[in-house]
């Protein structure tokens, strides 16, 4: 069912990664992504992939959960891999099928691409989405982006919008599930017929879903109004963030890792 989509869902726990400062996690993610894209030789890719699994172990998030998240993007990965294999040309011809030629380089690219995507998904989900509560995440984001306020960018409002959106994702998923069940009980059939018929079958789900979403938005706005919400100006916070020694240690580890991967580029 819809509920089984776990990509990007907070998973409570008390690992080191859970305890890191959300601002630091955002910096770590950026460094990690740069590292993944800096890798360009087999040894670096092995390291990158290994680091993703190490992060996964540290987080204590069940591997099953993360692998399920990977399954969701399996088709995209397979698709890019196929494109890479068939459309990359190089010097080492492996197979000549007439119209298409498969080169060693194509296969290497495909493998690298897959490793990149896998590490990216595992890394970001383990560092950020699985181990950071949505509230902490937007809070961290707001503070990391705070300097942009100078340019009159409404950072607080954006982060509040994001918090609300994240907050309502599970609610909306649950609601969609409920409405689908209710319409199935009334004999709705979502799995047969041509494209047109299937699209039409969704009307009984979409209409109630939109109606209730607007309703909810309205109620939330009123509730916020009642609690005198006036935007970010002069707003104080219940939790103050302070960098701890673990944050610094993680930063050093991550920077060293990036340095190693980049250094490997020069060696190979």
């Amino acid at each position, binding site marked *: 069912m819809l*509920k*089984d989509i*776990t990509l990007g869902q907070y*998973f409570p726990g008390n690992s080191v990664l859970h305890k890191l400062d959300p601002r630091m996690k955002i910096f770590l993610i950026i460094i990690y992504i740069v590292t993944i894209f800096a890798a360009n030789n087999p040894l670096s890719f092995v390291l990158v992939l290994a680091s993703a699994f190490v992060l996964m172990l540290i987080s204590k998030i*069940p591997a*099953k*959960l993360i692998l399920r998240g990977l399954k969701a993007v399996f088709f995209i990965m397979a698709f890019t891999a196929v494109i890479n294999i068939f459309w990359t040309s190089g010097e080492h011809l492996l197979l000549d099928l007439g119209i298409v030629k498969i080169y060693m380089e194509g296969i290497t690219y495909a493998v690298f691409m897959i490793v990149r995507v896998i590490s990216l998904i595992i890394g970001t989900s383990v560092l950020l989405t699985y181990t950071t509560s949505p509230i902490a995440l937007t809070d961290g984001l707001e503070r990391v982006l705070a300097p942009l306020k100078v340019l009159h960018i409404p950072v607080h409002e954006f982060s509040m919008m994001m918090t609300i959106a994240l907050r309502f994702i599970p609610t909306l998923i649950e*609601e969609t599930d*409920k*409405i689908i*069940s*209710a*319409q*199935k*009980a*009334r*004999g*709705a*059939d979502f799995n047969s017929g041509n494209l047109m018929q299937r699209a039409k079958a969704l*009307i*009984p789900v979409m*209409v*109630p879903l939109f*109606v*209730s979403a607007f309703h909810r938005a309205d109620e939330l706005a009123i509730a916020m109004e009642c609690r005198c919400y006036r935007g970010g100006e002069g707003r104080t916070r219940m939790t103050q963030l302070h960098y701890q020694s673990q944050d610094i240690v993680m930063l050093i580890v991550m920077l060293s890792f990036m340095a190693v991967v980049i250094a490997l580029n020069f060696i190979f």
Partner: protein
Amino acid sequence: MEEAKHAASIALENVTYRYSIGTPFEKAALQNISLQFEGGIITGLMGHTGSGKSTIAQLLNGLLQPTEGKVTIDGKDIWEDPKKISQIRFRVGLVFQYPEYQLFEETVLRDIAYGPGNMGLPQEEIQRRVADAAKFTGITPDMLEKSPFELSGGQKRRVAIAGVMAMDPEILVLDEPAAGLDPRGRKEILGGIRAYQREKKNTIIIISHSMEDMAIYADKLMVLDHGHVSRYGTAHDIFCHAEDLKRVGLSRPQITKFIMELQKAGIPVESGIYTVDDAYHEVLRVFGEKERG
């Protein structure tokens, strides 16, 4: 005598149901439960919050598939051919808890007709059923032409119930149909369901935790406790066991408690009173006698 049409009975046989299997949130909502709902009567299914009532409701019409065990209608496993499960949903109607949110059509009439329409019935038959269902749920002809979104909460509830009633299922399951309504709304909806059952002579299961309501509207009561049936019988059978009820988090109707207080105070009223009407007659009887005596 009117020829009694066969009414289907539905049963769970050693059913276990777990939610979110394979995730850290895995949870057994039902553990090896067996129960049977008799055909041709209204059964009140009662239990405290979280006792698995809604899960049972969805198992009965095949929206959930048992993790272990079988759901059977007249002894036949409904999952025998999983491809035909939508046929089961036409035989077992389910009205969800707070069903108001499922309305979507432009008019009430069309919304009630959605279910029968999915069954592929001819137009006249659909119209006949809609009119029938509207009658039992107290939906007036002018309401039929309105948009469901302009109705009050209680009216929406009726439309949602009518939408399933119009499918004329052999077995109708209603999950807390009267939850959150005022006393008059409760009476009208539950009374309508009873009138419908008396006419169709089909099998109805009403989930509720109101002892008061079920004492009046259900023929038999089934009490769930920690995933098994702790009591099954008429209101009289059930309410004799006060300690039992307390343990499963339910209580006797207030009027029954009141009558028992009267007994304690030495007034010779009969026990076994579950409705205000009965209490009224009983009190009149006793005090009338006293005056005479």
